[in-house]
C-alpha cells in the first residue's frame, strides 16, 4: 500500500513540479466551460409559467435598451436602474452577500451598505453596456426550489459562438410580484461568489464590517 502510494505521489510530483513545461489548460481551466447540458425535470406549474415569462420580459427589456444605439450612456444607466428596481430584490441580494456579518453590523452600517451595494452593482454593469453584441435570451424551463423560490433556466445566445447557460433564482414577494434574487452563470452563483469575496474581506480585516464598507466607498 505504502509503495503504491509513494509511486503514485511520485508521479504526481514529477508531473507537477519537474515537468511543468506541459501546460494543459489556462489559469482557470473549466471555470466557464461552454454548453454543459442540464436537463431539469420540468415543473410546469402556473407559478413556473409566470416566472418564466417574467424572466423573458426582463430579458427583452434589457435587450431593448442595450441594443438601442440612440441612447447615451447615462440614459442607459437610468434604464438599468429602472430594471434593477422593478425586477431585482436588491435588499435580499445585498443581505445575502454580507452573510452572517449582516447581524453584526449596526443599523447605520446596514443602511450605508445597502446604498453602497447598489451603487457598486450599477457601476460594475454600466461599464459593460458597450460589450453588448446582439445576444439574445432564450428561456427554456423552470422548476421549484424550496418552498419559496423558482429557478428559471435560460440560455444567453450570442450571434456567434457558444451559448451560455444562465439560471435565475426568482422569488415571489408578498404583493405577488416576482423578483430576481440570484443569477447563476454556468453553475456559478453571483450572490455566492460575492458573499465569498465579502466575507473574506471582512474576516481578513479582523471580522470588522467597517473594512468592507471602506472598500465599497472607494
Amino acid at each position, binding site marked *: 500500500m505504502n509503495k503504491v502510494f509513494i509511486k503514485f505521489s511520485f508521479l504526481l510530483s514529477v508531473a507537477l513540479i519537474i515537468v511543468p513545461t506541459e501546460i494543459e489548460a489556462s489559469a482557470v481551466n473549466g471555470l466557464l466551460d461552454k*454548453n454543459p447540458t442540464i436537463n431539469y425535470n420540468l415543473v410546469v406549474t402556473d407559478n413556473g409559467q409566470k416566472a418564466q415569462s417574467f424572466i423573458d420580459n426582463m430579458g427583452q427589456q434589457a435587450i431593448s435598451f442595450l441594443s438601442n444605439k440612440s441612447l447615451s450612456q447615462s440614459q442607459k444607466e437610468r434604464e438599468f436602474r429602472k430594471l434593477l428596481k422593478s425586477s431585482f430584490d436588491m435588499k435580499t441580494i445585498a443581505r445575502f452577500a454580507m452573510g452572517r456579518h449582516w447581524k453584526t453590523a449596526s443599523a447605520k452600517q446596514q443602511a450605508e451598505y445597502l446604498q453602497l451595494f447598489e451603487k*457598486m452593482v450599477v457601476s460594475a454593469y454600466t461599464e459593460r453596456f458597450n460589450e453588448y453584441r446582439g445576444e439574445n435570451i432564450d428561456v427554456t424551463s423552470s422548476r421549484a426550489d424550496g418552498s419559496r423560490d423558482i429557478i428559471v433556466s435560460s440560455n444567453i445566445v450570442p450571434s456567434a*459562438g457558444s451559448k451560455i447557460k444562465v439560471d435565475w433564482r426568482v422569488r415571489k414577494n408578498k404583493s405577488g410580484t416576482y423578483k430576481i434574487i440570484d443569477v447563476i452563470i454556468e453553475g456559478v452563483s453571483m450572490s455566492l*461568489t460575492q458573499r*465569498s469575496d465579502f466575507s473574506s474581506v471582512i474576516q481578513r480585516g479582523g471580522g470588522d464590517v467597517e473594512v468592507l464598507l471602506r472598500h465599497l466607498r472607494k
Partner: protein
Amino acid sequence: MVFKIQMKRFTAGLFTIAMSSLLVVACSANKSTDSEIYDPLENVNRTTLKVNEAIDKAVLEPVAKGYRFVTPQAGRTLISNFLRNLNSPTVIGNELLQGDLEGAGNATARVIINTLAGFGGILDLAAEGGIEHQPEDFGQTLATWGVGDGMYVVLPLFGPSTLRDASGRLVDRYTDPLRMYLSNIDEDELRYARIGSEIISQREGLLEVINDLRRNSFDYYAAIRSAYYQNRQSLINDSNGSATIPSYDEF
C-alpha cells in the same frame, strides 16, 4: 546525481503527505474562511495566485487578446470545436467510469458525427442536432466515486484546483490515447501545438470572466476560489443527472 535522487525522494515524500491528507480531509469538516471550502494552504495559495496572475498578465492574456484580434469569432469557434473533439476519448472514458452509459453514448455519437460530417471536428454538428458537449474528466469521476475535494490548491501555471482534481488531471493526461500516440511517433511538435492552442483558446474564452472577477472583486483570491468550487460542483452534479443550483441559505 545523489542530490537529484534525494530531491525526488523529498518531493515524493511531500506528496505522500499531501495525498494522505487528501484522504483524511475527505472525511473531515474543518472548514475555513469560506464555510464550504477547506483551504489550509491559503497563504501559499495566495502567493501562487499572485505569481500566476503576473505570468498571465505578461504572457497569456496578451496572447489571448491577440488571438481574438486576428481571428474572427467564426474561426475561433472552429478551432475550439476541433480541440474539444480531440479530447473525446477522455470524455467517453470518464463517462464509462462514472457508469453513465447515456453520456458515453452521446459523447461517442458526437465524436463520430463531428469527425466524419463535421470536417474532422471543426463543426459541432452534433450540438446543433441536440447532442451537446458535456465536459468530463477524471476529477469528476473520482467525485462520483465519493472522493472528496481534498483541499483547495492553486497550482503553479495551472491555477485553481483541488487535490482530487489535480490528481484527476494527471490521470487524464497520461491515459489520453492521442497524447500517447503522438509521443510514440515522436511528434512532439504536434503535441505541444495542441497544448498551446488549447491554452490560448481557453484563455480567450475566459477573457471577460476573468476581467470581471479581477475588476469587481475586492478579494480576487476568494472570489475565484468560490467560483471554481461552484463550477466544479455543477459539472459533477450534471453527471449524476441532478440539478446544479447552489442552495440559497440565508443567515
